[in-house]
């Protein structure tokens, strides 16, 4: 088991979002997190990544086991595509740089400044980071935003390969990525805090 979530409650800006969430993720498994805007998809992913404190419950995951991709791309516009990837490659100590360029169809763009890329190309560059490391759990927040149809399909294929090679993914998404095998759908609206109670006002400032 790579990740387990036990009776989790999380709040954002002092407002409790969801409670009593339980699930576990093992290798090869795909977890899709659904629900309307503001239901807490991003907050859940950020909590798993350790970027934000939780109210109740437990998240068990090894810090070296996941790689997080948020809604921001984390792409440096003043660097070229290759320089951007090289940086993350050095940070994660990976050796799959060329594979990442190839799979996300970035080879032709590699010497262009990231600031000159289109939104979808930037997104691809941002997602290419995932292939630079062997970390098994991918925590993805709306990964397919601004990707075109072909890129979406290519990404689904990459995700599928990742799952087949023993990886796992927790993905907040609105679209169907076409992954059925070993997939778990969680609709956060089912866990929504009923009263929507506001925690102590002091907590809102933390």
């Amino acid at each position, binding site marked *: 088991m790579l990740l387990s979530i036990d009776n989790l409650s999380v709040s954002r800006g002092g407002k409790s979002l969801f409670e009593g969430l339980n699930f576990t993720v093992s290798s090869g498994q795909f977890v899709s997190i659904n629900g309307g805007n503001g239901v807490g998809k991003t907050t859940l992913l950020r909590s798993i*990544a*350790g*970027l*934000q*404190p939780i109210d109740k419950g437990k998240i068990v995951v090894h810090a*070296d086991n*996941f*790689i*997080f*991709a*948020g*809604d*921001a*791309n*984390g*792409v*440096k*516009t*003043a*660097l070229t595509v290759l*320089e951007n990837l*090289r*940086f*993350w490659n*050095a*940070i*994660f*100590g990976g050796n799959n740089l060329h594979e990442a360029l190839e799979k996300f169809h970035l080879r032709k763009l590699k010497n262009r400044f990231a600031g000159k890329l289109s939104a979808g190309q930037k997104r691809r560059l941002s997602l290419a*980071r995932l292939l630079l490391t062997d970390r098994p759990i991918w925590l993805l927040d709306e990964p397919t935003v601004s990707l075109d149809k072909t890129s979406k399909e290519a990404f689904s294929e990459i995700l599928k390969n990742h799952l087949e090679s023993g990886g796992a993914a927790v993905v907040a998404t609105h679209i169907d990525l076409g992954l059925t095998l070993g997939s778990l759908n969680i609709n956060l609206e089912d866990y929504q805090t009923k009263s929507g109670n506001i925690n102590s006002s002091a907590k809102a400032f*933390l």
Partner: protein
Amino acid sequence: MIALLHRDLILAVRAGGGFGLGMAFFLIVVILVPLGIGPDMVILSKVSVGVLWVGALLACVLSLDRIFSLDYDDGTLELLLTSPIPLEAVVTVKAFSHWVTTGLPLVIISPVLGLLLGLQVSDIKWVFISLLLGTPAFSVIGAFGAALTVGIRRGGLLLSLLVLPLYIPTLIFGANVASKGLSDISNSSSLLILTAVTLAAFSILPFATALVLRINLR
């Protein structure tokens, strides 16, 4: 970590990186002061240490908010937080690269500007040494302030109000090293305190800065 330093240095010298902003400010201050005070070399050489030190301090403050805000805006900071490199190391590297791109150029041109302000060639080494030992503290203390204000739009004013009091020990002892050295009085005690402040800042503040960043990114 070397990759991060390398990246920060490249970003600083590329377009929009803000390299040279501090240096240009420093040059302008030091060149304008003699025009304001007048050409009396005796007076000029008396105020020269103070002008160089205050100029260097303000030049450093000018670019502090860039240490974290650019990485915060494009999401890189969040990704660095979940990367294998400890955040304390990230913070130290970023403070160091701020010094290399802002403080170090000031230290290097300070001898020339010292001559401009009427210092003797033999006295210039103290200005150079004091700035070399003191300016790293400006960057690492500044990184702490930048972490406190990251995510605040136009946080520059708050940032300078936060860090300026913390800069005072470095300013007092740094200027003291230089002015005592100029008048041939023993300055070893000030020199030791100046170095101690810089070393203490580098050994303690990265932990505080990392903690503050984690809280600020929640």
